[in-house]
């Protein structure tokens, strides 16, 4: 356990610089978007009211008030979320391959540590999950900051102040990473965790059998995901009105999830112990 935390700390520290750069770029871009959007609105409002002879009320009637939604709904904002997601997806692969590739083959050291090789697997999984959650929390923090920026720029008459919760649900994408309920949150991140574990297993297939391993890995991921979505797919395709009640289906899905994750862990353990090559 001690080794696990040391390794986890080590993994997180290795990612910290890249992670910091990622967060800062997302943060800076979002602040720029917020400032630009808010100032553009204010300019338009001032033009219409001061030069165009509109009353404030007429302007608001026509263009509605400015809120964080105007920022969140911009394509650039969605772009910053995409950067974060892309970075994490990339890191899911990079977290393994960087130890093999380049001139410095750290994998020799990692695989010959006097600790269970599954610790490597688990620390990498947790590192990914913590990176994602950190990114999500960072986004929440940014929404607060951006909200304050909007307050500075836009006068109260033109502004609709929203709660963070409303900003999240107004977005097309944010509810996926921040569902509107704690149970839904655990389901979403449980799915995410399952996905990471399956991809890791596929990577280990590749690392064990190389070219052939890519096929094994893809096949493994395909089969795992197919089995996972089988209960709900059967349910949706075969029955107009659900045969299993929602909570039963959830239970079946949870069990399927557990079986697939457990199988993935066992396969990964076998590969790491017996098949993986440097």
């Amino acid at each position, binding site marked *: 356990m001690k*080794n696990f935390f040391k390794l986890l700390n080590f993994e997180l520290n290795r990612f910290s610089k890249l992670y910091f750069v990622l967060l800062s770029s997302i943060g800076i871009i979002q602040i720029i978007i917020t400032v630009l959007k808010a100032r553009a609105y204010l300019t338009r409002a001032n033009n219409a009211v001061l030069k165009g002879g509109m009353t404030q009320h007429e302007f608001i009637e026509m263009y509605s008030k400015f809120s964080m939604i105007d920022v969140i709904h911009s394509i650039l904002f969605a772009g910053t979320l995409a950067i974060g997601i892309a970075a994490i997806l990339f890191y899911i692969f990079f977290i393994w391959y960087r130890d093999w590739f380049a*001139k*410095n083959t750290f994998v020799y050291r990692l*695989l010959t*540590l006097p600790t269970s090789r599954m610790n490597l697997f688990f620390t990498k999984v947790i590192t990914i999950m913590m990176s994602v959650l950190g990114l999500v929390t960072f986004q929440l923090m940014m929404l607060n900051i951006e909200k304050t920026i909007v307050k500075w720029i836009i006068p109260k008459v033109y502004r609709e102040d929203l709660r963070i919760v409303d900003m999240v649900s107004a977005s097309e994408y944010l509810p996926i990473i921040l569902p509107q309920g704690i149970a839904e949150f655990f389901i979403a991140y449980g799915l995410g965790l399952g996905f990471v574990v399956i991809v890791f297993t596929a990577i280990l297939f590749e690392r064990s059998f190389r070219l052939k391993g890519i096929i094994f890995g893809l096949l493994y991921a395909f089969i795992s995901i197919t089995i996972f979505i089988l209960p709900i797919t059967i349910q949706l395709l075969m029955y107009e009105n659900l045969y299993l009640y929602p909570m039963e289906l959830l239970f079946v899905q949870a069990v399927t999830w557990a079986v697939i994750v457990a199988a993935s862990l066992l396969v990964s353990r076998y590969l790491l112990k017996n098949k993986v*090559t*440097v």
Partner: protein
Amino acid sequence: MIEVKDITKSFGRKRVLNGVSFTANKGEITCLIGVNGVGKTTVMNAIMGLTPLKSGEILIDGKKLTKESYEQITFIPDTITMPPTMRIKDAFDFMNDFYQSWNQKRAEELLTFFKLQKDDRISDLSKGNKAKVNLLLGLALDVDYVLMDEPFSGIDIFSREQIANVFTSHLIEDRGVIITTHEIGDIEHLIDRVVLLNNGVVVSEFNAEQVREEQGKSIVDVMREAFHV
């Protein structure tokens, strides 16, 4: 004692090890020699559990390799085993964190011996110095067996001298060493046992001193005969 028993390994259709067997004793330096490269490193990786075998087994003091074995045996490959962004002192910390067999005192001693600076970043080091760090990290572990893969390859002459000096120092004594090298000249006089590999089989396994005394041949002489050069 490390016992390599009848190990077989293929890469695709190519068989690189075909029933390789030999032993390496504690307190001796065993040299794995082969003309063409592949097999030797594979043997090292196999001993360390870093590549799966088709058949055969490897025992370390009579037991199969487990995670605990890594406190007993270490591998110094010909590439550096630490992330390049690390400073030497961070690498020390890392080793200290994970290995009970890490000997900080010896590490410091080796640092002085190799004239390295603790604050140096690994990526900034010359190739020779990188090899030294690699060696240092392996040798600072209080382990019974040390495996070295081509410790001299591509390294300047002064670094080579320094590394060769390690073999005559107390840093090596009592340990079992398996080494693969092309540059046999640097350490020929230190080698106790020789295993000659060719086309995936052991063509000859002998005691260097015995051959020298009884047949008056050097290792290179035996190699010449064995490989029909």
